């Protein structure tokens, strides 16, 4: 693999000149490549891209997201997925072909205010994103706390092959369900949740720095050292069909590709 160069850029910065191809968050005029977002630019061979450090969540098919049910109609749920479009979850996707708008009460499945884990089934420029909860580990979220981070920093929280989220899970004894949209559900003991929450915010703060894994490792070790014993394991008062650890694992796999592209 060729050597990757990184530098800080703001919109309008000339990243490269010559025979280069802009891959993401960059554009070309003539033979010059310019940055479109604030972030870290990467030159990999003749490919140029900018890893953004801020910005909204843009839905992508197959992304696992955590959403809040905002509205229920006779045929669909409207879900806030922290994006500039409201997502919708059609009732037929939950009830299947037996769905009967007259008989089925959508509120009995998901009510307004409830948190769901879903996957983006379809999205393009002309339509609002459509969600699906048919699949293992999808559906109503287990009880826990919800943390919001900047969506662009989610790949860092997951880490290589899920290493970062695994480290936080191991240290806090909590389970993390990470939505690509920046909503994270933490389930476990109150102490563990507090530790995981602090660690997640630390990842968000230092997402652009190198040696992030070591920083978080040190932070977790210090916190555990201070409190003596590692916090207790995950709480027992929940666990519906969703198995959060596996859900995070599935996300990790997805983000792997992102992370590998970064490296």
């Amino acid at each position: 693999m060729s050597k990757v160069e990184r530098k800080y850029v703001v919109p309008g910065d000339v990243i490269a000149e010559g025979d280069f191809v802009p891959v993401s968050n960059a554009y070309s005029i003539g033979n010059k490549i310019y940055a479109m977002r604030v972030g870290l630019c990467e030159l990999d061979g003749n490919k140029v891209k900018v890893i953004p450090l801020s910005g909204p969540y843009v839905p992508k098919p197959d992304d696992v997201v955590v959403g809040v049910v905002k509205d229920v109609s006779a045929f669909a749920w409207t879900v806030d997925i922290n994006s500039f479009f409201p997502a919708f979850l059609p009732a037929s996707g939950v009830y299947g072909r037996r769905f009967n708008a007259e008989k089925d009460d959508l509120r009995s499945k998901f009510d307004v205010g409830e948190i769901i884990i879903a996957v983006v089934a379809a999205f393009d420029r002309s339509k609002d994103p459509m969600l699906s909860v048919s699949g293992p580990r999808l559906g109503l979220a287990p009880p826990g706390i919800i943390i919001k981070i900047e969506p662009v920093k989610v790949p860092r929280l997951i880490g290589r092959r899920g290493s970062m989220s695994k480290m936080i899970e191991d240290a806090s004894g909590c389970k993390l369900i990470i939505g690509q949209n920046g909503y994270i559900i933490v389930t476990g003991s109150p102490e563990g949740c507090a530790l995981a929450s602090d660690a997640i915010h630390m990842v968000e703060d230092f997402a652009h720095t190198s040696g992030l894994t070591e920083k978080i490792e040190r932070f977790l070790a210090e916190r555990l050292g201070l409190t003596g014993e590692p916090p207790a394991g995950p709480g027992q008062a929940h666990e519906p069909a969703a198995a959060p650890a596996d859900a995070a694992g599935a996300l990790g796999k997805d983000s792997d590709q992102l992370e590998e592209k970064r490296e």
Partner: protein
Amino acid sequence: MNLIDENGLRIDGRKLDDLRPVKIEVGVLKNADGSAYIEWGKNKIFAAVRGPKECHPKHIAMADRAVLKCRYHMTPFSVPDRKAPQPSRREIELSKVIREALTPALILEEYPRTAIEIYIEVLTSDGGSRAASITAAAAALADAGITMRDLVVSVAAGKAQDHLILDLCDEEDKEGQVDLPVAYMPNMDQVTLLQMDGFLTREEFEKAFNMAKEACKAVYKIQREAVISRYFGDSIPKNKEA
């Protein structure tokens, strides 16, 4: 009023082609998606960006791009005499002018059917508040992570007592002969705003325009540095959730 003394110094002690001190800070407002604070001479201005978000009312949404909305507002205490808080004719015009100066820099096609809102609050007003507002708003847009072709910087040139001057203060704006605000994308080398109030000969115009353009490049360095230090500064980046 004597705007330029016998030594060629201006009312606030500057030389003809001096800028006032400019200070920009980015990411200052926790609840906005992007924000910037600028102090430019006596101007103190906040710019905040919300969006992209759902566009309301729906009928103004565009199928292929985002709608850019801009509100320039002066606080009642921003000028010596109380300013009525409702939008004045001048504020409505400046909102439009600022929006149009920023539009060429934004890649609005990335966010179809949405709206991006820019709010500009002038806390203390001096001359050149539109230039300062554009500069701050561009930094706030970059902070919000909105895709842009380039940052936009703006500086005014002008003429007072038959001398071409740069970066007019309030007295020079009111008592001077010409005000020539220029907004400019430095990397694209493109002008996004050019207004002129008064009369200049062709030669004077070229000279004043080039003065403004060069000053834009100087302010751009400060603006770029502010955006960079928001994300890559020594201090811990501000956590928006904290």
